[in-house]
């Protein structure tokens, strides 16, 4: 896990890119003045905000990140169609369940992304990550952490946990190298 940015003046390159794209979308134009001002804002805002934040792990594998985003997007569409069918189907036959998933990830940023992905994709909503570690000192051993999720229609608990771990958690580990 690498937390030290490569350039001092550009601490978070991908966030800068996102800000630049959002600025262009907001103005709906690619004229020179918008390109110039967008680039100015995209460099200045992260530069000012960087020292106000805790250091976050950096994205190490940009191409894998892109693939992960596309995969999650496709999963959102299919999973939501499934959820729509479940909602319209007979309610008595639903098998709601609480499941906890053991986590390998440690840092808060990948955990947040994982919880968000789980909420959006396969008929599940992430409920909690416990135990909290904020009160621990830097040298204390980290406990095993769990992600509590609620499933709308549970078929096989072990298969669901295996899917979440291999399909969403493993790429995140690869992306942040942690």
């Amino acid at each position: 896990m690498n937390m030290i940015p490569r350039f001092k003046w550009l601490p978070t390159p991908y966030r800068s890119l996102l800000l630049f794209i959002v600025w262009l979308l907001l103005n709906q134009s690619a004229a020179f003045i918008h390109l110039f001002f967008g680039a100015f804002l995209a460099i200045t805002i992260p530069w000012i905000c960087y020292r106000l934040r805790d250091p976050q792990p950096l994205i190490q594998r940009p191409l894998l990140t892109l693939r992960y985003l596309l995969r999650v997007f496709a999963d959102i569409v299919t999973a939501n169609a499934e959820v729509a069918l479940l909602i319209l189907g007979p309610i008595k036959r639903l098998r709601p369940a609480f499941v906890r998933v053991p986590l390998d990830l440690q840092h808060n940023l990948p955990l947040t992304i994982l919880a968000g992905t789980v909420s959006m994709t396969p008929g599940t909503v992430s409920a909690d990550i416990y135990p909290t570690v904020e009160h621990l000192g830097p040298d204390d051993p980290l406990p095993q952490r769990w992600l509590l999720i609620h499933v709308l229609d549970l078929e096989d608990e072990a298969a669901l946990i295996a899917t979440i771990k291999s399909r969403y958690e493993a790429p995140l580990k690869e992306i942040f190298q942690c």
Partner: protein
Amino acid sequence: MQNWMEWAVAFFLLLGGCFVLIGSIGLVRMPDFFTRLHGPTKATTLGMGGILLGSIFYFSMSPETLSVHEMLITIFLLITAPVSAHMLIKTALHHRLKAVEHTQGEQELKRGQAFASKEGNRSETPEDQ
């Protein structure tokens, strides 16, 4: 070309409207809070995506203009929907809402509730955990 675009607009608008409606039906039909949460967070978000795509196609129909800033709302909703769902379900755990009887994993729910209420008091005494 014009005709084809019009069909695309109609398709996406109807798809989005159906998903939004299904999300709200889920909000009404489901038996307990935890199952109710699934409809609005997932189906409604996809429905909004459909309606906004329809809007993008509609305003891009005239040849010289291109309208893409609806993408911003889609991206914003995609990012914020899981966050608000997470906050809502945490609130439900903290308030110890009941799940329907045949929910599996009762002890997981109990454990989650215990952690959620402990965390609620964390601001006073962080040391005594």
